[in-house]
Structure formats: structure tokens, C-alpha cells
């Protein structure tokens, strides 16, 4: 089926070339990092994780969100998702690929990365994270490919696919829970030391991931014969709505606990992120952008009349995505490191090279996504089943 990715129109090839070029820039910049060290990034002794790890954290959520399509379709036989479910599975593949690349570029000694499996350490959450992420990648590429292949031949998927699909459901929850545990189990990092972290991660994942999926589905519909259908999009929009409400609610719970208890350690990170500490306020504009986007998105999502209007829905999905990307792909990780363990502030901001590497990885991810979507869409265009009946 991969041959389908080699036959495409002008639009397809333009996109592929742009993404490949951006990936190339990322790879070249990474070679510099490999030579010079992580000193080319904005990370420091005090803020020892930065953009890479926060992008990884955000993208684990995007990957996990495929389950929001798999559960209704495979567990509840919600037939309307029949066309869109493959988009979710392939998005998960692209997202996990990016996650792994972000972990890889964050390593000080990347050539030693197999040490994680050579010296398996069950007490380390990172060991489990590496394990569940690899597993999730395999599960989704296998399931997506096998179901698409069966669809192409006009048969039902092989009998071994179903158990894998069922396995992928708890597995999706596990990847994001384990990723939350990376943070939630560290003594002395008050911002992260919260039992609600995994729940918060899942809520933000189940709104941010499907929001991205809606955007992608509408782009695909505009540019190809593939149409996931109006009703399925609306069903995903409902998922985005309720998950986003839960996400905002969880953040408000954190704020209540920190400020009503009045414990300085619990308040500091929020103060740094939203007001700045002693003039250190690099993240403040970003965090407020996140808040404004969250408010706009809820305003557009909750009234169903707005949500049903696809133009407003796109704006809502974009604001959800921006809000969560800032909150999780930036604030959550950096906020945990500031102020540091001595009560002083060292700020973090990504450098240009670090940003190019980050952009390069996103490009690789979207290149993978473009190719996988191209295959899926071409198969259906040939079968004449590209249009949803819903």
C-alpha cells in the first residue's frame, strides 16, 4: 500500500517537499547539537528540561487521544466513526514518532539510549515510559495498517487485530498516565507533586488531540475526495467540549489548593507563570494567551449552536490547541523548575537552534502523518468509499 504515497498530485508533493526541507533543517541543526552539546539550548542547571521534554509531554497526549475514536467505534459500535477512526490511529503513530524523537534529542548521550533496555530499571518511570511508548507505536501502526489493508481487499480485518484493538485502549491511557508519573512522583517539585496530574493530562489529551484531529479532518476534506462526514465531526467536537471543560476544571482545582492553603511552595509556580516573580516574567504573556484561548474555546464549544457551525468549530479547535500547547507544551514543565530548590529564579527560553530542532521534529511527524493519510485516502478514493454516508 505504501506505493500510494509515491503517486500524488502537485499539492501533495509541495507539502511533502516543504516538510522534508524543514525536517532537513532540523536534522542539520541537531548535528550541531550533537557536536557542541545541549549547551546550544536554553536549558540550564536549574531548568534542566525545556522545550524538548515539554513537546514530548504534549504529544503523548495527542497520541493517547486516538482512543477517543477507538472506544466509541470498536467498543460501542458507533458506526459514524468508521471513516475517521483511521485518521486517529495514524495521528497517534505520527505523534508517538515525534515523542520518541523529542526524547532522543533531549539525551546528553544519545548513542547510549539503548542502556534503558540493556539495564532495565523497573523503579524508574522513564523506563516504563519508553516501554509503553514503543508498544503504543507498534500497536497503532499494526492496527491501522491491518484494518486499512483489509478494507482495501474488501474483507474483514484478520482475527488477531481485534484483541490488539482492545489492548490499545488501556494502553493509550497508560502512556499518558505513565508520562504524568514522570512528574507527579518527584519530591520537592510542588507544582508537579499533585495526585490529579494524570487526570489532568488525560483531560487535556482528550481535548487537544481530538481538536487537532478535527482541524486535520477538515483540511483533508477540503483538499481531497475524502470526507469523514459532518456528524462524526460533531461527535468528536462533543468529546473536545467535555474534555476541555474537565481540563479547565482540573486546573482550577490546582489553583484553589495552592492559594487557599496559602503554602508558598504550592503558590510559587503559579505566581511565576501568571504574574512573574521579582520581574522574572518571560512566560506571563504566553500563559495569559493560554487562558484567553481556553475561555474563547469554551465560549465557542459549549453552546451547541456555535459548535455546529463549522467555521466557529475550527476557531474553537484552534484555540483549544493553542491553549493546551502553551499550558502543557511549555508552562507545565518550565513551571515545575521555577523557582528552583533554593528559592531563586533562573528563567528559561528556547534558543533559535533549539526551536529549529523542535520545528524539525514536528515536520518529521507531519511528514509521517501526510504519508500515512495519503495512503489511507488513496485506498478509499480507489475503492470509491472516500465519502462518509453520515
Amino acid at each position, binding site marked *: 500500500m505504501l506505493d500510494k504515497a509515491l503517486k500524488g498530485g502537485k499539492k501533495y508533493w509541495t507539502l511533502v517537499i516543504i516538510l522534508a526541507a524543514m525536517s532537513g533543517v532540523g536534522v542539520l541543526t541537531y548535528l550541531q547539537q550533537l557536536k557542541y*552539546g545541549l549547551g546550544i*539550548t536554553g536549558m540550564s542547571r536549574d531548568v534542566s528540561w525545556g522545550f524538548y521534554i515539554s513537546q514530548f509531554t504534549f504529544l503523548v497526549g495527542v497520541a493517547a487521544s486516538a482512543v477517543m475514536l477507538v472506544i466509541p467505534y470498536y467498543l460501542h459500535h458507533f458506526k459514524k466513526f468508521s471513516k475517521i477512526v483511521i485518521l486517529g490511529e495514524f495521528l497517534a503513530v505520527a505523534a508517538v514518532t515525534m515523542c520518541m524523537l523529542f526524547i532522543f534529542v533531549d539525551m*546528553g548521550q544519545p548513542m547510549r539510549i539503548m542502556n534503558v533496555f540493556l539495564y532495565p530499571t523497573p523503579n524508574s518511570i522513564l523506563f516504563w515510559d519508553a516501554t509503553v511508548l514503543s508498544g503504543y507505536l507498534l500497536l497503532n501502526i499494526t492496527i491501522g495498517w491491518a484494518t486499512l489493508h483489509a478494507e482495501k481487499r474488501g474483507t474483514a480485518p484478520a482475527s488477531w487485530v481485534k484483541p490488539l484493538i482492545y489492548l490499545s485502549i488501556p494502553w493509550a491511557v497508560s502512556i499518558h498516565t505513565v508520562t504524568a508519573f*514522570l512528574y507527579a512522583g518527584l*519530591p520537592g517539585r510542588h507544582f508537579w507533586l499533585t495526585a490529579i496530574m494524570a487526570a489532568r493530562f488525560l483531560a487535556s489529551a482528550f481535548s487537544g488531540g481530538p481538536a487537532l484531529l478535527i482541524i486535520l479532518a477538515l483540511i483533508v476534506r477540503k483538499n481531497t475526495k475524502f470526507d469523514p462526514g459532518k456528524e462524526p465531526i460533531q461527535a468528536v467536537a462533543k468529546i473536545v467540549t467535555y474534555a476541555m471543560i474537565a481540563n479547565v476544571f482540573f486546573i482550577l482545582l490546582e489553583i484553589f489548593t495552592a492559594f487557599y492553603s496559602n503554602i508558598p511552595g504550592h503558590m510559587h509556580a503559579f505566581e511565576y507563570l501568571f504574574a512573574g516573580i521579582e520581574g522574572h516574567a518571560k512566560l506571563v504573556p504566553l500563559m495569559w494567551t493560554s487562558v484567553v484561548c481556553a475561555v474563547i474555546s469554551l465560549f465557542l464549544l459549549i453552546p451547541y449552536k456555535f459548535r455546529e457551525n463549522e467555521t466557529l468549530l475550527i476557531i474553537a479547535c484552534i484555540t483549544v490547541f493553542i491553549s493546551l500547547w502553551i499550558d502543557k507544551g511549555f508552562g507545565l514543565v518550565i513551571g515545575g523548575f521555577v523557582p528552583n530548590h*533554593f528559592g531563586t529564579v533562573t528563567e528559561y527560553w528556547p534558543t533559535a537552534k533549539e526551536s529549529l530542532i523542535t520545528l524539525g521534529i514536528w515536520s518529521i511527524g507531519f511528514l509521517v502523518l501526510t504519508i500515512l493519510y495519503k495512503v489511507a485516502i488513496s485506498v478509499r478514493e480507489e475503492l470509491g468509499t472516500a465519502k462518509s454516508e453520515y
Partner: protein
Amino acid sequence: MKIDRRKFLKLASCTGIGLGLSAADIFKDTVEASSGHSAVSTAATRYAMVVDVRKLQTAEEYQRIVSACNKIHNIPTLIPEKDDIKHEIKWIWNDTYGHAFPDQVNYYHPEAFKQKLFPLLCNHCDHPPCVRVCPTKATFKRPDGIVQQDMHRCIGCRFCMAACPYGSRSFNFVDPRPYIEDKNPEYPTRTMGVVEKCTFCSERLEKGQQPACAEASNGALVFGNLNDPESEVRKILKSNFSLQRKPELGTMPSVFYVIGGEEYAG
């Protein structure tokens, strides 16, 4: 069956409920058990350090301790100033009381005391979070309590830096070798991309020597076996009030600080 204090108290509490003991008694035990200050290690040796800041007065005395460590361990001290805060490597350094004990500050500490410096280093915790999170066992706890780092296995993921509540770990963001003032051929230099920290001078202990900082401290830093009731560290801790950094986190640090009143706060 071996029963340690914690298990005993748990059992005792449960039995207590069964026997209908008064709730107050059980509660009392629980509070004591959860305070986490008891020495749980039962190994023959648990290395520890007592820092008696009363004996440190001049800037020169403080600097001598740090320099001794830097020199022996090939610490890159020449990292350009613009990157210094970001890429600094330090195994032992001096900082104020407020930074060392941020949760134990009050407004009315004497001004001189607020300015007083404290030598800070890896606490070689009995329950080290860095060891718990390391995905490759590159950092591990030895039977004698020293938390060690294998620079050849470390993948540079920096999870240990996120986990250490004392800021005791440094990462080689760049190749450290050009920034070493005077190389000590007896001790390995490090490559870029690995994490490092104080080792209680395990290489010197093997030769029967004291840690370099203790040796350079004129008796202000005392090193010894915390599990030997006759050791000097135990004697000092027995006769002086001492502090550990962030004891509430349950890490059980092996570095203790003996502080004095204002008359000592240089």
C-alpha cells in the same frame, strides 16, 4: 522475621485498634513514625558528614573547601561568565541559610545569620530520589550509603536533576575539558552530556583518606560512619543541635548542619 521500626509501628497500630487501645496512643505513635527522622539504615556503615558552620568564619576558609574539591575532581571552573549560571558544574559550593533551608527561614533571624554561608553538597540520602528515577542504574546507592554516579552508563536524560530536591546535580551541557583550570591526572575528566555530583570522595576513602573538603576544612566538616555510635559524627550530633536540608521530603539526608547562635554568625 526481621521487623524494623516502621513495620513494628504499623503492626502495633493495627494491633492497637484490635485491642481497643485509646485512639490518642495510636495517633501519637503514628505521628512519631511519619516524621521520618529515625535512622532506618541498618548497614554496618552509613557514611555521613557533619558541617559545623560555627567553625567557618572567613571567606578564605569557605573557599578553601570548595577549591580542594574542584581541583581534585577536575571540576570545570573556567566556563565563560555568560554561561556560568546555566552550565555551571559544582560538587560543593557555599550559599546562604535562606537558600540552603528555604522552608526554615523566619523574619527575625539575626541579620548576620542570614548572611552566613553554608557549604552545600550531595546529601547522599538514605532514600535518594535520584536513584529511584534513574532509568539505567547509572546512579546507584552503595551499601555504605554513598550515592554514586557511573559516568559511562549515564545517558544524560537529567531525570535525576529533576528529582533531586537539593540542586546537587550538574549536567555537562558542553565539553568540560577546555574549562578545567589545572588538570589532575589522578582523576578522570568527564565527557559532555553526562550528569555528575559529589561522591563523598569514594576514590580517596578507598585509600584511607578523608574527603577532600573535610580535609581542607580545619575540622569544620567531619566525615564518618553514622551507624557507629562511637564515631565522631555521632558524638557531635549527640551533643549539638543539628539540621538536615528539607527533612520533610523523607529523603533522609546524610549531611547534617550544626549551627550556632548569633555570636558565631560571622
